[in-house]
């Protein structure tokens, strides 16, 4: 195992991590601050990917195959969809307990999957990386896709933007205040309902960014949101519910551990047991690693790595 390959695999892990962060950031905000469990977050990621792919495949104002336009439609579409869903369905659930929220948003997953299937068909939908980023960059003798560098860049920029928004702006201050004591913020004359809607829109917009980024590298298909939603839940629980900082670091840790584990665990096992057994047991064990990580973190820090203090 060469050091170059290790670096490439770390990049792969980092790229997966920032994609997870884009999803986790929105989910943890809604979960932590509005105390609302939104299982349909993965569906909004899927819809973001579909909106972007649709804009990419169809001429809009005579422009077709533009990644910028796909980005506008994908992100804009998921923000609008998120706000509509929040206003129509979810706001009635804020006062209910978590089980009701889980049931209702799980229902939304089924609805969104069927809608996607109905509109775009059951098979994968076509989307390609933008021409300028379709090549690969030679890094220490190993080719690494340029597009994946862009994902890393966009993810880190969003993380920086989120940090500035939460820590340095008035909206961010209100969000933090709302997290500590929503009733008190409301009593001080702040429109907490509007704040919640904005927060939700921000979350689904980030899910849309993730969907847009994933569209060209993954198969855009009904149900694409569920597997990644589960990992996202692992991320926010590990990082500490409601903490953007926690989501960021936990996403990177989970991304790197999952990637490194998938590659090196089978190799490691081969040195210990018979090859055919290692080939079968390796991927199975590797896929458990992130759950083990979560269990260990929760055993020592039940509130996650970066717990949020509630008033």
């Amino acid at each position, binding site marked *: 195992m060469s050091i170059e390959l290790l670096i490439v695999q770390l990049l792969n892990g980092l790229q997966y991590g920032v994609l997870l962060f884009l999803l986790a950031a929105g989910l943890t905000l809604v979960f932590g601050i509005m105390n609302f469990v939104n299982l349909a977050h993965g569906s909004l990621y899927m819809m973001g990917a579909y909106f972007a792919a649709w804009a990419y495949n169809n001429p809009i104002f005579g422009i077709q195959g533009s990644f910028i336009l796909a980005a506008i439609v994908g992100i804009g579409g998921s923000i609008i969809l998120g706000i509509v869903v929040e206003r129509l369905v979810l706001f009635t659930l804020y006062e209910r307990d978590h089980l009701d929220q889980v049931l209702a948003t799980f229902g939304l997953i089924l609805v969104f999957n069927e809608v996607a299937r109905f509109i775009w068909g059951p098979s994968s939908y076509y989307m390609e990386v933008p021409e300028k980023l379709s090549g690969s960059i030679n890094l220490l003798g190993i080719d690494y896709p340029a597009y994946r560098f862009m994902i890393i860049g966009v993810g880190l920029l969003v993380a920086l933007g989120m940090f500035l928004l939460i820590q340095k702006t008035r909206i961010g201050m209100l969000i933090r205040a709302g997290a500590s004591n929503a009733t008190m913020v409301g009593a001080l004359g702040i429109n907490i309902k509007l704040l919640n809607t904005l927060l939700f829109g921000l979350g689904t917009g980030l899910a849309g960014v993730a969907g847009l980024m994933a569209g060209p*590298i993954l198969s855009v298909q*009904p149900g694409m949101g569920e597997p990644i939603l589960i990992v996202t839940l692992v991320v926010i629980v590990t990082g500490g519910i409601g903490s953007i900082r926690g989501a960021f670091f936990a996403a990177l840790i989970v991304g790197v551990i999952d990637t490194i584990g*998938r590659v090196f665990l089978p190799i490691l096992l081969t040195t210990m047991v018979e090859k055919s057994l290692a080939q079968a047991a390796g991927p199975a064990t590797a896929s458990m690693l992130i759950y083990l990580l979560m269990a260990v973190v929760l055993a020592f820090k039940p509130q996650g790595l970066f717990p949020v203090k509630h008033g």
Partner: protein
Amino acid sequence: MKLTAFISAAILATASATAHAQTPIKIGFVATLSGTQGVLGQDQYDAFMMVVERNGGKLGGVPVQVIKEDDQLKPDLGVQIIQKFAEKEKTPIITGVTFSNVMMAMSKPLAESGAIFVGTNAGPAPLAGPACNQNFFFTSWQNDMQAEVMGKYATDQGYKRVYGMAPNYQAGKDFVAGFKRFFKGEVVDEVYTTLNQPDYSAEISQIAAKKPDAVYVFYPGGMGVNFIKQYKQAGLLGKIPLVSTSTADGATLPALKETALGVVSGTFWGPDFDNPASKTFVAEFEKKFNRIPSQYAAQSYDAALLLDSAIAKVKGNVNDKAAFRAAVRKADFKSVRGPFTFNNNGFPIQNMYAFVVAKDARGRVNLKTIAQPITAQRDSYADKCPIK
């Protein structure tokens, strides 16, 4: 009283007589029609019905009624459907089936029903070997054949070191094993990924570092779309040849388009086949559905032609099991693949081909025939089938 009885008897007699003349032969069609893999089942259904509709609702000159069911890729649901066909509908003929796991679960009730079964996709090894059945016929292939042809192709190309990848489940292992059976070189590594894993970047980086002569993969459906996209983006497509089974096919090419150019795939038929039966099929299918027919459509089209020939041979009397079975076994129809005969176990003896994803004459991304690595192949399990 007497008169009433007479009249009602007469009415009954006429009614049953007309009913007899018009009662169509029931054909049970079952496939995976919903979910991400529903594309395969839809192609199977469309191609089968195309023949029925072309013949004015008849097969072999006799009206047929096709009862369509979706197994949703659930083995238990598949079993229920077969029971419904057997007990409620009493269908003498059953066709379709998309996935091997559903096929295996169905095989017992299917055998007990006594219906003649024409499978149009899944061909799991046990049904070709010890668990073969005289009523089971397949117009597709035994699963391993599609992997074996790629193993032979890789050998013919002179590849020495090949890297194998598939999802970590039974079919994935079977396909890699089938590839190895016909590949003379060295398989430098076998990597089995979690089923439905979306991202292969880590595994692809490992491939790039190993620098094999070629990569063999089996990634059906959405997994194939993911893998090929990512393989291309990593800059490996065109650098390290990618040979595959069920990965670049009619189901995934519409989502991949130009991305898949250059991927090699192995099966029994391609849309560019230069024989009259295939040309008729492709032209008619494209005209009717406005898409390129997949191999899954071709398999089911052949099944409809096979049944058409066999029903005609027994003049619609499909309840004479022995005669009807013998008529099916004759395979007296013009297959889109050219030469076609049934082996002792009900699987085809057929030529196997290699295809490359390329632009066709009309500029569409399509499969192009490049080699015929194996001629008149019998599957590797027929010896173990007790039927001689």
